[in-house]
């Protein structure tokens, strides 16, 4: 299909970017970046976190003014001073962190992103029409605060579509979506492409780019390092271009697991979140030197399980045991002292305090095991040393431990959060979504660190929605479904169908299968 678009390359490019440069104090975000997008083409912009993708698209959308270089749109010089100007020229953008207002309804949100919105009633009708045409059902009167992540993205997309954009910029659109929602999104994008709309698709998920895009420009450290056809280039080649070195696949020597370290027995618990899922009779054993992976669709009790293990939610003493010792009724700090550490999913606000420095964040969970407190007083020098050690050992890219956690990119903060727990030498580590929203090389580093930890004799429990990740690092695999945990099975040799059945909660079939 996309070849047809190429064949018609007699037409001029829609957008041509030449020699774009943008420097911030201390960093060159983009240097001499050039590429072009043909009409009706899906063009991928590929790069790691911090490669300069976001700055580049902000320049195209008029949020940031380039220091040098020029852009041409449809043959005419294009220098948008504001997003209004960009929208008026037919450039629309769907943001990575949604630019939506939760307390306003869908129609109001759409109106705010348009240059000349029609009156509310007519707008509501047009939203219904457009959303149905593109298979993105939306109710214009609902408050955005009540919508799911996928629905919120629909609001953003519909807002763009209502202006008939010639170029649609999508900044990491799939990072918050379920696999089903990703499919729906791709359907919509292919349809737009068939109608002649060009799409600039920013992502670091290689398989998505291979499935969707016609051409890819690869950025590294603010510069273009390669252009390729993603359909004929392997994911590995693209990843290596993106990272700039051969990509390291996590590996470790196989070794027999030891004694049971973490034992969960008959754990049932209500969720503290009114929209959460209660845990029902969860039982599991994690042995020393073993990585157990827990899969399942989000919202089936993952957060609750992590809370029950970290000590944020307490249960009966015997429901959670560490090395045979009952800890179910103990709080997080006592469990930390005993060696049971946890890293929750939400980086900002749960795993780390966003406005506090890295030193302070290191202190928050490291105080007990690293001895950073003496008689109620903080040992700042030791805390800073601990933070610096995390930064060095886990390759956290930041100017120093005095920086606020909020200032780090997602991948760097995730490396910091995981590294902080691993450096405390846990007996048992529980992590939820360790590589969510993290680029390929950082994700590989985090997985390798988890494997090394297990090799050192610790028990590791990984809760994740990334099945590939779980298959790569787990020894045994179990799935959460509506708060129930399936029986764990060896990860090696599990087929996709079997995993699907486990995630769907078909426990009986699974037993029959095992017996058969």
């Amino acid at each position: 299909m996309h070849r047809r678009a190429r064949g018609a390359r007699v037409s001029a490019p829609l957008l041509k970017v030449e020699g774009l440069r943008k420097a911030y104090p201390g960093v060159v975000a983009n240097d001499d970046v050039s590429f072009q997008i043909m009409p009706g083409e899906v063009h991928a912009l590929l790069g790691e976190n911090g490669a300069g993708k976001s700055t580049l698209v902000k320049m195209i959308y008029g949020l940031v003014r380039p220091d040098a270089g020029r852009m041409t749109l449809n043959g005419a010089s294009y220098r948008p001073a504001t997003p209004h100007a960009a929208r008026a020229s037919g450039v629309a953008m769907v943001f990575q962190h949604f630019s939506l207002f939760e307390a306003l309804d869908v129609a109001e949100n759409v109106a705010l992103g348009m240059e000349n919105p029609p009156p509310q009633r007519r707008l509501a009708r047009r939203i219904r029409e457009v959303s149905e045409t593109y298979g993105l059902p939306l109710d214009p009167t609902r408050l955005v605060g009540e919508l799911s992540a996928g629905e919120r993205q629909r609001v953003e997309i519909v807002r763009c579509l209502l202006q008939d954009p010639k170029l649609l910029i999508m900044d990491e659109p799939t990072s918050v979506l379920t696999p089903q929602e990703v499919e729906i999104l791709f359907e919509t994008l292919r349809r737009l492409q068939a109608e002649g709309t060009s799409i600039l698709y920013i992502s670091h998920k290689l398989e998505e780019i291979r499935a969707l895009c016609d051409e890819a420009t690869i950025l590294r450290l603010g510069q273009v390092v390669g252009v390729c056809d993603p359909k004929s280039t392997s994911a590995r080649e693209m990843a290596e271009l993106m990272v700039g070195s051969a990509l390291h696949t996590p590996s470790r020597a196989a070794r027999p697991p030891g004694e049971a370290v973490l034992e969960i027995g008959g754990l049932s618990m209500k969720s503290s979140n009114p929209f959460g899922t209660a845990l029902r009779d969860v039982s599991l054993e994690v042995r020393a030197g073993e990585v157990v992976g827990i899969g399942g669709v989000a919202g089936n009790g993952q957060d609750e399980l992590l809370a029950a293990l970290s000590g944020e939610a307490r249960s009966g003493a015997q429901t959670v045991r560490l090395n045979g010792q009952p800890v179910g009724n103990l709080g997080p700090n006592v469990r930390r002292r005993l060696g049971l550490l946890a890293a929750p999913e939400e980086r900002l606000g749960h795993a780390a305090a966003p406005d506090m420095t890295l030193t302070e964040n290191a202190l928050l969970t490291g105080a007990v095991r690293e001895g950073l407190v003496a008689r109620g007083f903080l040992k700042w020098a030791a805390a800073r040393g601990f933070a610096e050690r995390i930064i060095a050992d886990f390759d956290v890219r930041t100017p120093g431990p005095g920086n606020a956690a909020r200032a780090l990119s997602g991948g760097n903060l995730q490396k910091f959060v995981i590294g902080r727990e691993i450096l405390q030498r846990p007996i048992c580590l529980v992590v939820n979504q360790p590589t969510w929203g993290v680029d390929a090389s950082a994700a590989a580093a985090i997985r390798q660190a988890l494997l090394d930890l297990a090799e050192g004799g610790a028990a590791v429990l990984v809760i994740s929605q990334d099945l590939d990740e779980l298959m790569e690092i787990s020894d045994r695999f179990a799935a959460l479904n509506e708060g129930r945990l399936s029986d764990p099975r060896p990860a090696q040799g599990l087929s996709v169908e079997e995993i699907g059945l486990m995630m769907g909660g078909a426990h009986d079939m699974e037993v029959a299968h095992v017996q058969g």
Partner: protein
Amino acid sequence: MDLSTIDPAILLASLMVASTPILLAAIGELVVEKSGVLNLGVEGMMITGAICGFAVAVETGSPLLGFVAAAAGGAVLSMTFGVLTQFFLSNQVATGLALTLFGLGLSALMGQGYVGIKPPGLGDVNLGPLADIPFLGTVLFRHDFMIYVSLALVAGVWAFLKYSRAGLILRAVGESHDAAHALGYKVVLVRLAAIAFGGACAGLGGAYLSLIRVPQWTEGMTAGAGWIALAIVVFASWRAWGVLIGAYLFGGVAVLQLNLQAAGAHIPVEYLSMSPYLVTILVLVIMSSGRGRAALNAPASLGRSFHASS
């Protein structure tokens, strides 16, 4: 006690007069807070408006010019708050408190020559036959024009926030300044405009006190009215009509308890004096409780400083 001395028509009419200063200040603060700015300097802007209005009215003999000067005075004072919080990113709570203290001191200084003078009066609006309607005529149609201006302001603010595009942008800025900036709206300009409007309204409320309600100039004469206005905005869940109800309720109970005291009610004066505060807060808390959508009226970015990162 003798309740027959209380005439309900006169009581209701004086209720409107007593409530108008708070209503004016509160409707201005509502707009400010809807844009995401918490200005605790309402008291200071009110009393600055009170003396600006009083002085100009006395010097020119025109109460109308007095009100214009009061609005200008309040707006100018609010701009010091605006510049400090929007450009220098100072803390809004601390800056607002400082504004109140500054306004109280500044007004005392400006008002030294005006103690004990009687300002020119503002006649009632002539509404012809409407004023002759029994009961209703006394209650609603024999007032000075500022009362009608304040009611029009409430209706105007309500319609502005609900139906106009500018109002939608203002609410969006108050809800998430980062998202509004990403869409290309000028967050700081919107907020400065809202702060100036709030200052002008507070100034009008102060001038209403010194020119009509009291009417004379005394130091510190607002006596906490600005703080009541602030509380009413919150308890009314940031809704224009809720602010009207809250202000009239407060003014009504205040007038009623004065009448009861005059009629010799056998209730300790302390209880009567605290009654307006208690009743207003109780009623508004009940009004705003248990309604999911009402809670969403609170602007999510309230009190947070905005700095464009790119």
